[in-house]
């Protein structure tokens, strides 16, 4: 089990390795001789980005953690305009951020291959919605490739660059959580000499205002060109090595399986022991190649489309069938759910129903038995880590602002502040939205200064936003709040890393994959913008944090508090690597009165309730030694037991 960052650079063509889908895509990009990679991390795309960051210097690839997906898109797009192979990666909702540039740039085309990797998250394992990127592809008239396995993800990445270059058109490589976060056997291919020798590649931008300046007179020419191109691509995709027909040629029933659904269909057919069907395996859900449909439909009497999320393939197939006078039954979303991720169970249930068979397991009786389990299993949602500085920040905010205050928040680990006992998150909608929502609520509830009687009690509004999110989309919202004379507190919970997605650097840390960048201090940005109160505080000092929050709330105008303390998970990782120890706390049972403040108000996962002794206890394996418990306990019951690991 070698290190992934080594494996992706192995010069061992033919070697079989176990790679995560995201790692496989990184390898594919290297095999394709990528020159520029730019991205903002987002689950489930982040391991691709981090792998590119780790190998960038060794492979001669320029890689940057951009401040947001739109900026990343523009960095990579410009490289492709200059004739270089370039890639950007993002989670599905990241494409919303990049959409302005994305949709406007389609008609301009590219010179070097340009691949947009978008990782969707059906079932929303770590996301705020489950939008289907294939709908975007159709909207933008950009082809989308969708792998059915980690190995295919690697191969498709290479093909995506070739396709993009051949048609001078951008290409989307769409994965889902179950590809990006699935490990599978991957066979390594050849690495280009330039990658092996770490030779940086530079481009050449040829000025052409009729193409690169999208004033209306130019843009009007783009739309018909785009439509013409996508039809040519549709023809090309009939020969695409990731689209094929398999199974019984003389079968009367057919199943269309796009992307990863193909894997579930294969398993379902094997589980059902069915082999008299024809399967159309589709690696290109948009545009669906009509020539393949003609061949596939020949001789069929009924068709089922097993597709995850939106009926993207289904709609294309049905329109094509109608236009061609084909009147056989075509089923899709009437058999396969439109919400949440595809599973073998879903595929086998749909196929069994379609073929008039029993499912191999009586799933409903399993569900019935499981009801007993649901009734007694306690929930275990994710929680802020032990020693997480955000816990202290939320604790101090809640104490200073009171429970009647409104707490808009944002996207990051700190969204977990919504859970009891902290309950200091009232809204979360999209990256950077905390500040816009805080300002909007101030307008709606309090009005601008002078509008309402000053004796009237104003609603206190305290927003929380992470350091990386602040730079991502918080900046324009902060400028707006200050400009429009908002009266809100904005707490930037600065843990000096982009924590949720796995420890990436950002402008607040100043590091880049190519060495030191320029660090930007959040407090200096806030001061320069004209915030009315700016202070930095260490949330490991709960009393000091509380006092700063009090002052911030009392100040008229926009207050910015930077609560700065390194991410506990990041810090513990560093201590472990260096072999250093940290203090472990324990409960002095003579002092513990069983008041439960540490559990019912503070809620560190390392502290639990001993129902027999009626005392709090610390799980020494989970304590990371921040000492927050000792600060919140009114009886001084938490004491350092020993140095830890």
């Amino acid at each position, binding site marked *: 089990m070698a290190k992934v960052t080594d494996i992706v650079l192995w010069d061992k063509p033919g070697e079989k390795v176990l790679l995560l889908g995201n790692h496989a895509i990184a390898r594919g990009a290297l095999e394709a001789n990528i020159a520029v990679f730019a991205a903002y991390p987002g*689950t489930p795309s982040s391991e691709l980005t981090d792998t590119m960051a780790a190998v960038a210097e060794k492979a001669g690839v320029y890689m940057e953690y951009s401040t947001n997906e739109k900026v990343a898109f523009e960095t990579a797009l410009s490289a492709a305009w200059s004739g270089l192979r370039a890639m950007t990666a993002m989670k599905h909702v990241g494409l919303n951020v990049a959409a302005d540039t994305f949709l406007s740039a389609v008609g301009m085309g590219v010179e070097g291959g340009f691949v947009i990797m978008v990782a969707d998250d059906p079932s929303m394992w*770590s996301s705020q919605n489950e939008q289907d990127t294939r709908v975007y592809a159709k909207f933008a008239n950009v082809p989308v490739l969708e792998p059915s396995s980690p190995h295919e993800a690697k191969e498709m990445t290479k093909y995506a660059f070739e396709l993009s270059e051949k048609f001078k058109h951008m290409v989307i490589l769409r994965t889902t959580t179950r590809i990006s*976060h*699935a490990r599978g056997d991957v066979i390594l291919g050849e690495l280009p000499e330039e990658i092996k020798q770490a030779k940086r590649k530079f481009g050449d931008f040829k000025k052409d205002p009729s193409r690169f300046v999208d004033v209306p007179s130019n843009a009007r020419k783009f739309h018909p060109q785009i439509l013409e191109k996508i039809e040519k691509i549709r023809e090309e995709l009939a020969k695409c090595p990731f689209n094929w027909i398999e199974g019984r040629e003389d079968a009367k029933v057919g199943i269309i399986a796009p992307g990863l659904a193909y894997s579930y269909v294969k398993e379902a057919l*094997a589980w059902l022991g069915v082999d008299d069907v024809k399967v159309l395996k589709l690696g290109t859900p948009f545009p669906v190649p009509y020539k393949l449909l003609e061949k596939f439909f020949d001789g069929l009497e009924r068709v089922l489309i097993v597709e995850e999320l939106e009926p993207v393939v289904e709609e294309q197939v049905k329109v094509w069938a109608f236009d061609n006078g084909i009147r056989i039954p075509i089923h899709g979303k009437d058999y396969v759910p439109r919400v949440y991720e595809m599973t073998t169970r879903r595929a086998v249930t749909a196929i069994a129903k379609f073929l008039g068979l029993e499912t191999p397991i009586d799933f409903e009786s399993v569900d019935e038995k499981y009801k007993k389990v649901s009734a007694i299993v306690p929930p275990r*949602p994710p929680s802020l880590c032990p020693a997480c500085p955000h816990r202290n920040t939320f604790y101090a905010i809640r104490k200073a602002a009171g429970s009647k205050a409104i707490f808009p928040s944002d996207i990051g680990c700190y969204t977990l502040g919504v859970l009891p006992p902290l309950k200091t998150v009232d809204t979360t909608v999209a990256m950077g939205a905390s500040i816009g929502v805080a300002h909007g609520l101030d307008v709606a509830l309090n009005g601008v200064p002078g509008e309402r009687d000053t004796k009237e009690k104003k609603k206190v509004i305290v927003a929380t936003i992470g350091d990386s999110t602040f730079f991502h989309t918080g900046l324009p919202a902060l400028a707006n709040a200050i400009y429009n004379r908002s009266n809100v507190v904005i707490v930037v919970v600065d843990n000096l890393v982009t924590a949720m997605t796995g420890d990436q650097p950002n402008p607040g840390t100043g590091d880049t994959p190519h060495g030191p960048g320029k660090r930007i201090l959040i407090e200096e940005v806030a001061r320069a913008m004209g915030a009315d109160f700016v202070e930095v505080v260490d949330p490991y000092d709960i009393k000091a944090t509380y006092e700063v929050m009090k002052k911030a709330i009392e100040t008229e105008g926009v207050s910015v508090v930077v609560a700065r303390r390194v991410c506990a998970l990041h810090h513990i990782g560093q201590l472990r690597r260096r072999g250093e120890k940290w203090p472990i706390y324990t409960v002095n049972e003579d002092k513990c009165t069983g008041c439960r403040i540490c559990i019912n108000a503070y809620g560190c996962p390392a502290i639990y309730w001993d129902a027999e002794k009626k005392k709090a206890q610390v799980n020494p394996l989970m304590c990371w030694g921040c000492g927050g418990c000792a600060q919140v306990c009114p009886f001084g019951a938490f004491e350092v037991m020993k140095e830890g690991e």
Partner: protein
Amino acid sequence: MVKEYNIVITGVGGQGILTAANLLGWAALHAGYKVRVGEVHGMSQRFGSVIAYVRFGEDVYGAMVPEGKADVIMAFEPVEALRYINYLKEGGLVIANSNPIPPVQVSMGLATYPSMEEIRKIIEEDFKGKLITLDAEKLALEAGNVITTNVVLIGALTQTPGFPLSAEHVKEVIRLSVPKKAVDVNMKAFELGVKAAKELLGL
């Protein structure tokens, strides 16, 4: 060569579940199998309930074990064995670490933690599985470091009746995967897991 072998690994985020899944995946790959490992990263990793899947064999395509098809569930925490019991096939084995980690809601008095007897009853009577439990943390400490809890459990897992990979092979993959200075501790942890499972299974 088996057609399909399915392992479900469950526990609490931060317990080393993904590392265990990855180790088992590599062990299966080195034994010549087609492999899939399914995991979830991001928010769900933060001390929440976690499930990972390791599958290998000719007929394996997707990364998730279908419900009712797991040959074995390896649980790092007792209640997390019960939470995913619908994945176990009839007659399958559950190997669980016996140390409960009470969720915050339990400490707050908003939920209760079921007793070991209740957990065993549902697994064995309703889902027709077999449950064995061992104190993996204690054995890991005995081996020299609590961080080897996952290796103790992997050692125990290799004793599952019908497990397609040999214990020696899995052990060798672990030996080659861990840092040099940690080899001895891990080898000892593995052996303690094997021994505990042998006793519990009457082998």
